[in-house]
């Protein structure tokens, strides 16, 4: 047990270090930007005195280190500054948009698992059969379609074939939860498509790989049925190796949602990000970037913890 605690502690230190470097990267990126944030806000006709005033209001006249720490303190109290463009707390703005992005990512992830997992199990039963090969080829093609292209094609399909016009409307979950899920389905599917392919391919090869492991042969020699071997040995082992890939897929889905929101015109973090980019709203931009990275870092951390719980070998490391 001690070694497991040590492992968790090590992972935690790694998490803190990574977050530190991530925050440095984000902060540095927005501190070395050419141009004076205060002047950008006030516009070209502002006097120097006005700019100076705003600079001190915004704390831009303080040394970098002080600004970094006050930013970090803000980030962890969910109040990393005020958006130039919206005149609102960055934390508040992000919180408003989170339901879209997270909801979409969650639905996409559920789709990925619900579709790829059974397919992979079926496909890996008889590798090389026609069904398996068809799945694999379709998987490759789906894998190569960027999410936003998939979105466009889905819109085209939904509009022209199914005569659906759900595109571009968004209903907040508080208003009508069913409609909220409904309006996120198509975009989620667009993000999920290539990831279904990725997850299918990985799970399939992972199951096939586990099937060829010696312990499967041992279990057979113990007289276990194929189904029992699949459920009790092969799937748990392939799940352990899938935890990491699932966290990577989740992070990809999060990244993919940034673009797909744009296509489907959903008010999520991606749109906020792009609006922040086009308005050079750096407090907002750095907030979004950092929180998205934070989510990913935590995802990886959780996946590490999960694998350590699932795999007794890791504790020894």
């Amino acid at each position, binding site marked *: 047990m001690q070694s497991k605690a040590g492992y968790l502690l090590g992972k935690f230190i790694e998490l803190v270090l990574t977050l530190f470097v991530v925050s440095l990267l984000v902060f540095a990126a927005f501190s070395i930007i050419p141009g004076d944030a205060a002047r950008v806000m006030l516009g070209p006709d502002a006097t120097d005195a006005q700019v100076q005033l705003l600079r001190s209001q915004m704390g831009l006249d303080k040394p970098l280190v002080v600004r970094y720490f006050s930013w970090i303190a803000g980030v962890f109290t969910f109040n990393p500054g005020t958006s130039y463009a919206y005149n609102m707390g960055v934390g508040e703005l992000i919180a408003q948009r989170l339901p879209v992005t997270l909801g979409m990512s969650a639905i996409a992830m559920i789709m990925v698992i619900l579709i790829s997992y059974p397919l992979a199990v079926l496909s890996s039963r008889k590798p090389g059969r026609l069904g398996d090969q068809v799945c694999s080829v379709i998987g490759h093609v789906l894998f190569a379609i960027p999410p936003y292209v998939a979105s466009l094609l889905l819109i085209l399909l939904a509009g022209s074939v199914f005569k659906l016009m759900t595109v571009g409307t968004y209903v907040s979950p508080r208003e009508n939860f069913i409609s909220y899920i409904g309006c996120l389905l198509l975009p989620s599917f667009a993000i999920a498509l290539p990831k279904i392919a990725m997850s299918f391919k990985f799970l399939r090869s992972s199951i096939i790989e586990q099937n060829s492991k*010696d312990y499967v042969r041992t279990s057979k020699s113990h*007289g276990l049925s194929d189904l029992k071997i699949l459920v009790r040995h092969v799937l748990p082992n392939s799940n352990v190796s899938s935890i990491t890939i699932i966290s990577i897929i989740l992070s990809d889905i999060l990244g993919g949602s940034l673009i797909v929101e744009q296509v489907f015109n959903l008010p999520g973090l991606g749109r906020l990000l792009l609006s922040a980019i086009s308005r050079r709203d750096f407090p907002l931009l750095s907030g979004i970037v950092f929180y998205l990275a934070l989510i990913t870092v935590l995802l990886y951390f959780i996946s590490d913890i999960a694998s350590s719980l699932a795999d*007794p070998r890791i504790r020894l490391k």
Partner: protein
Amino acid sequence: MARHIHIVKVHHLTLSFPTRKDPDPKPVLDDVDFGIRDGEILGLIGNSGCGKTMTSLAIAGLLPDNARITHGSIKFAGKDLLAMKPKDRRAMLGKDIGMIFQEPSTALDPLMTIGKQLEEVLTAHKENTQSGEDRLKAVTDMLELVGFTNAEEILGRYPHQLSGGQRQRVLIAGAALLKPRLLICDEPTSSLDTVTTVSILALLKELCQKLRITILFISHDLSAVRGFCDRVMVMKDGKIIDKDTTSDILSNPRNAYTAELLTNARLDTRILGLEPANVDYSASPVLTARDITAGYGRSLFERVRKTSEEKTDNNVLHGVSLDVYPNEILGLIGGSGSGKTTLIRSLLGLLPHEGAVSIKSASVGAIFQDPVSCLNPAHTIKWHMSEALRSSPKDPGKGFKGRAKALKRIITVLEECGLGAKYLNRRPNELSGGQRQRIAIAMCLIQEPALIVADEPFSSLDASSSAELLKLMTDINRERHTAFLLITHNIHIVRQICPRIIVMDEGRICEEGTTAEVLTNPRSECTAALLEAERRIHGI
């Protein structure tokens, strides 16, 4: 001869792997016909790919999907196995037929405790309606039977927490749990060291007698069946070519192939007459090491931890001192984990260590165990030799003349090692293991070192390549007066060519002296144990 009941009768079995392109390929098993008598230990010997594993899988009903039995039948205790449903055959496994395999390190599910995995054997068979407590007791008893004194503790462990020998015992326990009538052992000892091998074989023999289990023992090593199997079959290219009692086969092989298998197992007969140089022990040593203490940190490049507490935890070597004299072939033997490899890595400066190493030579050569990885697959032999030359103080320099000179020396050295200029542009993957080891030696020689450290150079080579390599080493020793520090677990070799040996155990030198003295009259327990294991395996 008394009439024996055959528990398994394999009758003219022919098996092949047809594909769409080749519907009628050369059979993998060709008219295999034998019986396993109740209560005996039957050895099945042959090189890899000869079909011995397929034979065992055919009996167990675990053949790959694409295998087709085109002819013949298998009967188990009178029942025709091939006529049974796959489900029923699977149900026989564990209950009537147990199996253990070669690689104990991967044969257990890493995510499940030993107890649960063994319990599965019981729960898999429906007719077995024991209660949970009974099952636990059965498992614990069986673990005790296979030699665990702390069986209850083992139940809660995961496979990675056990050693290779312990895992093999767990597997044997699993296979024997329902007291099957037949136990198929597919190379159960080939990945274990000699001392463990001996104990596993003893365990199998004990089970055979105590539980009246019949054993089919598969091995590529004829010497392993000595003193273990009652009868032996020799298999080649899917056919059984020789079949008799063990003593008959070993003493009187009836065909060339069996004889070859036999000699392969006996390196000692081939290396008689090698003559190493005479050693002058009054000369100053070419290598002196004093109080070497070393261990592995997180990486090879990290300093050894300084705190005294951790030293005892991590260190593999504890104050080892040794001298290698000019001209000498010093043997270094010891069981696995005794610290031999750590010692030579420290001597070669590859590992941070405490203590002093002084080498009276501009360079030290080294050759290693694995002939596959000893050469860089990306480069030609010429590149290897030039690289060695370039790194040595003897480099004739750049420029056209220097290069021409270098090439000449490379060819000379290659020829000295029994290879010629035609090898210059070959790549490592075009050479055999023995040839690669020679290239490795040539790379050392071109640097003209006074000492070559050889770390188990024979362990992956077959007998004839080993013999040739040994001859090359003694020739070099005699003609170039190069000293060798030879690490090996093979006592015959040491006996033949090393005037002096050092025996290591648990990171310390436990015995040191002339070979004859140490081997005939061991003073320490570890030497005695090594000799005993060697004797039982090889019958010397």
